[in-house]
């Protein structure tokens, strides 16, 4: 006696959008895409390594040249800053509070990238006592995005665990992998805004070894305000 399969089940299987064949096809497509993404990622990472190296060398070259000529080389002003909020949420006046909200610095030890221009510098001026900021180098940007990088997907904060995630969201801006993202952020490219907003605000740990005093500015042996390249050492302690 053969097993009788109910008619409804038969119809269901026939109708099923998740049938084996369909799933297989979908999977194959996806695998192909992933391969493409990974190969692109490899090539682009290589390209960017060269680019960063060239940039550094160029800078050195220009400086040396200037020294030879007896003049000075004025480095281009930094385009990128990394801001870390170092004060809590209690007792913050409305203007700095609003600016911190706009910059997505809603809790202590949260960090964001920001491009530096006249408007953003003015904003930073208002929130100086509540944050410390500086100019991150490539390795800092990399470490932040790799180790603490979370994406904003579907209004949710999800850790970036594959290039597919980045591809899905930022493919239209020609950002398909981690290194693309790092490059876009570090060099403040055309699509910096989209790359930055793809990233959730970084949640850092309190610094190993602690702060001296947050109440004073960095310039006065405290911690808040602009600390230029020393942001890199701080991020290492907080990441």
């Amino acid at each position: 006696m053969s097993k009788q399969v109910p008619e409804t089940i038969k119809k269901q299987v026939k109708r099923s959008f998740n049938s084996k064949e369909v799933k297989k096809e979908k999977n194959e497509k996806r695998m192909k895409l992933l391969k493409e993404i990974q190969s692109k990622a490899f090539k682009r990472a290589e390209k960017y390594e060269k680019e960063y190296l060239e940039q550094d060398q160029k800078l050195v070259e220009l400086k040396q040249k200037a020294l030879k000529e007896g003049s000075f080389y004025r480095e281009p002003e930094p385009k990128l800053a990394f801001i870390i909020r170092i004060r809590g949420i209690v007792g913050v006046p409305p203007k700095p509070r609003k600016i911190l909200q706009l910059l997505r610095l809603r809790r202590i030890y949260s960090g964001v990238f920001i491009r530096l221009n006249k408007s953003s510098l003015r904003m930073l001026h208002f929130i100086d006592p509540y944050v410390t900021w500086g100019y991150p180098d490539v390795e800092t940007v990399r470490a932040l995005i790799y180790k603490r990088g979370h994406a904003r997907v579907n209004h949710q904060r999800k850790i970036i665990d594959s290039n597919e995630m980045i591809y899905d969201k930022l493919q239209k801006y020609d950002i398909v992998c981690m290194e693309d993202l790092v490059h876009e952020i570090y060099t403040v490219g055309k699509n910096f805004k989209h790359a930055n907003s793809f990233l959730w605000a970084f949640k850092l740990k309190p610094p190993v070894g602690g702060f001296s005093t947050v109440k004073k500015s960095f310039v006065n042996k405290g911690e808040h305000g602009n600390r230029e390249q020393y942001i890199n050492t701080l991020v290492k302690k907080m990441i």
Partner: protein
Amino acid sequence: MTTQQLRPIVSVFPIKGKVKTIKQVPLPSVFSAPIRPDVVRFVHTNMAKNNRQAHAVSTTAGEQTSATSWGTGRAVARIPRVKGSGTGRSGQAAFGNMCRGGRMYAPKKVWRKWHRKINTNQKRYAVCSAIAATAVTPLVMSRGHRVNKLPELPLVVSDQLQSLTKTRQAVKFLKFIGAYRDVEKVIRTKKTRVGQGKYRNRRHVLRKGPMVVYARNLGIKKAFRNIPGVETASVYTLNLLKLAPGSQMGRFIIWTESAFKLLEDIYGSWEKPSKFKSGFYLPRPVMVNTDVERIIKSDQVQTVLRNRRPRSRKYGKKIQRADPYEDMSVMLKLNPYYKTKLQKQKELEEKNKEERKEIVDKSRKEYEDWLYFSEEEEEEEEEGSDEDREIEVLSDEN
């Protein structure tokens, strides 16, 4: 509702002889009315209030004193006290509901609203529901009727039943048809009422047995009158309080054939109105087809549904991932160039190391040579004046 309703067939049984189908009649539309226990409960609770008699406490009860409060300053409560002296009653508290011999709180009045008006349609809805429930065996059984031995539910019997005159005949019929078990139950469980009703002319409590519904009373009423638990009713005047005693649907009903057929005329159907209740159509159920699973699985529905979305991770569910700087596989998933990069760095380091080693070796050799040479010179020269050696001196001129 506008489609032709396929009505099942019900067998008609004789009142004696052999229990077998002598005729078949279609099931009246009433039995397809929606079974709404909520409606029945509402109507029943209100209808049951309608046979109440007014009762109240005497208007003068507890007020027949001229008691006055003694006021303050006499070390007693300020409740009104009976005037006078010479009797135990004097000085006793009066009037209050808390006082002995005082009137009650809010004395009951006869003008309390004893009866309830119920919308006619609601009443009819409830009756339709109750009648429909009498054909549902599980409901009848759960009400407590003993219906195991019945040939069929609903139980329809030939019109000869209406002509019975003797109780003996009626009992014989009940035994014949298998309904006597229910009557036996009633007899067995006749008890003295619990409570004060027992000396208020409501001494015994009986269960409800079968109900016999007829179209014409040709003696049936009297035949069944004295059988404990059995009630008779004309099909024209079916009472909800009897159809769903205690608002519990599923009374065991024995229908006569003509009564059963009349149900179609009395309660109508969804297409045809009732002949006796003006403008009344059978109540419509909210869902025509209650087999929801079947509806969802049907072709008509399934072909119109969109694709099932891939199972997305629940809101807030965290994905664990190792630190890419500690776990190489995670790093390579994100940056497949990383390994190559490390290799290149290593190669560069080694190359630099070698270069540096060369330079260091070279300079060390030079230094050692210079040292060796200077020692030899010292040995050769006896005087070893410093002035002879050519030493480069950094001067301001240079």
